[in-house]
């Protein structure tokens, strides 16, 4: 069953084209990730789907309801957690939860089982003002508030930005549980490592989807052998790699460079090339591509 479908969505702000001919379909009970850098159009897409913005052209439905015509019914069944923390900072944790329960015509008790796991962690601070919570706790509370009315479709716009790694992990475990409850989740994130947690992902750049598939398929589709390169003088390495005739592409990945080689080139040739330029501690290893490598490749093609 289709929980959400959008067809040829266009949206521009003045002369800036934010979304171009975007179409997507999300199955019921799916975790659908929208992966892309800041400014790619994730938030605009979310606002259109949550009935908060009107698209310039194109249509979208949630549970068969039109986002423009039937916005009132849609607002009853969706949960939305905006990218910016948007709860009442001068209310306490408990007051915020109570407020949103009331806004959605329900009570905290009614759907407590949905939020129990996550709310338990912030319950010790329930009399604290929201402004004084840490980033991770804020996001947990925001998720609780978005879930309190048991939405059928949940929109999470960059929910893990500014959250510590442990809380991020807990957050995703929470989403897995919600999936079991049959809630459809559309989540956007700039973190590529979170992509593999999704059932399907759409890679978005400059308002267009580069590719939509399962994370596994996207990685499997990576056409080249990928090498990780490390050497002594890392900061010079970038320029020398670019000068090298063997290199098809190279991207900096924290401590290493991810490199693909030209058609006939071998890693041995690259090693010689680097040794000629007096690098030491050269390590060249074949590695599995990640979603980020796929994104880089696709975005380069796009350009």
């Amino acid at each position, binding site marked *: 069953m289709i929980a959400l479908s959008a067809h040829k969505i266009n949206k521009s702000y003045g002369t800036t084209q934010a979304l171009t001919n975007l179409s997507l379909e999300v199955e019921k009970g799916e975790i659908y990730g929208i992966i892309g850098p800041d400014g790619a159009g994730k938030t605009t897409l979310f606002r259109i789907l949550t009935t*908060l913005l009107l698209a310039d052209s194109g249509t979208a439905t949630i549970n068969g309801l039109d986002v423009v015509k039937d916005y009132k019914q849609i*607002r009853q069944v969706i949960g939305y957690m905006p990218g910016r923390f*948007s709860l009442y*900072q001068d209310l306490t944790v408990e007051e915020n939860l109570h407020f*949103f329960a009331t806004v*959605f015509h329900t009570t905290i008790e009614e759907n407590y089982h949905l939020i129990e796991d996550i709310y338990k962690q912030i319950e010790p601070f329930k009399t604290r003002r929201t402004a004084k919570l840490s980033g991770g706790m804020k996001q947990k509370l925001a998720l609780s508030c978005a879930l309190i009315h048991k939405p059928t479709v949940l929109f999470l716009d960059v929910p893990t930005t500014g959250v510590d790694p442990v809380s991020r992990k807990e957050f995703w475990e929470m989403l897995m549980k919600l999936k079991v409850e049959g809630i459809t989740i559309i989540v956007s994130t700039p973190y590529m490592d979170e992509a593999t947690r999704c059932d399907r992902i759409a890679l978005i750049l400059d308002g267009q989807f580069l590719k939509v598939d399962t994370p596994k398929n996207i990685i499997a589709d990576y056409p080249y052998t990928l090498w990780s390169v490390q050497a002594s003088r890392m900061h010079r390495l970038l320029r020398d790699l670019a000068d090298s005739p063997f290199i098809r592409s190279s991207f900096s990945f924290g401590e290493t460079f991810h490199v693909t080689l030209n058609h006939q080139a071998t890693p041995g040739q690259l090693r010689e090339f680097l040794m000629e330029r007096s690098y030491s501690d050269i390590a060249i290893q074949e590695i599995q591509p990640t979603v980020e490598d796929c994104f880089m490749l696709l975005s380069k093609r796009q350009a």
Partner: protein
Amino acid sequence: MMILLAMPVIQILLFGFAITTEVKDVRVALFDPSKDTSTQLIKERIRSSEYFIIAEELTSIDQINDLFKYGKINLMIVFSENFAENLLHRGEAKVQLIADGTDPNQASLLTGYASGILNSYQQELMEQYRIPFQIVPEIKMLYNPQLKSAYNFVPGVMGLILMLICAMMTSIAIVREKETGTMEILLSSPIKPISIILAKVVPYFTLSMVNLITILLLSVFVLDVPVAGSLFWLTVVSLLFILVALALGIFISTMVNTQMAAMLASGMGLMLPTMLLSGMIFPIESMPLLLQWFSAMVPARWYIAIVKKIMIQGVEVQFVTKELVVIIAMAAALIMLALRKFKIRLN
């Protein structure tokens, strides 16, 4: 930015040319039972003076009260009977100057100018006949015999405070939700726009009612400004004015996106016109015609006029029908506008 650059220019020009406490073209009514050469000459001088316009010449003395109640005139000049005869034969004649004391400053200015005109005529006669003549002006301040300034500023302050609290605070409160992002969640929830508006408006409505009561209590018991007319109608009119201000606040909130902008818009857009154009400080009659039209669009002008009439002059409600109709029309139009403009989506 434009506002900051344009503000000083506008204000300097306004204060320099248009808005002034000097009186000009004030409407005067005359009652002249003698109709002789002396009164004729005096009337001629009044007519040619730049301060006064003769609005009406009464045939009966009974009309005076109604003229003041409708606010048609600010000064009434009543000549005594057989004016010229008394003046020439007894050397003394009486003129009564009746001014509207609800604006004490203006009232003293007006009676002063009028006495000046009488004096100069008297001076001329003396030079002509070499006998001491005396025109005795008898000054009467209607509604405010002691010329207390409180009688003037209490209605003005009521207009100002209610406008400030309702419009500025409401617009800021709604815009704050936009600024903190909570509006985004509220709009994506099933809550109805009208509930959001009511939730924002009710606290300030209550607050302004408390303010209204405080102002009235203070003015009656501390400043000794009595509520001369009907307290019921004063309350009704105040409620209407509060509605106007609240609707303006909602309207502003739909136009701007930051609290700062809301503050500027309600400050410059509402406070300044209320102070300058409502007639609370500067008489509307002495403004250029263009500004008079502008002032007709300032809700506080009508409200302050009604409060002055009901509270200070103590007139019955039928004398403020025109102002009341204007306020009701403004309230209805602005509420409609505010509700229609209130966005169910983000921008």
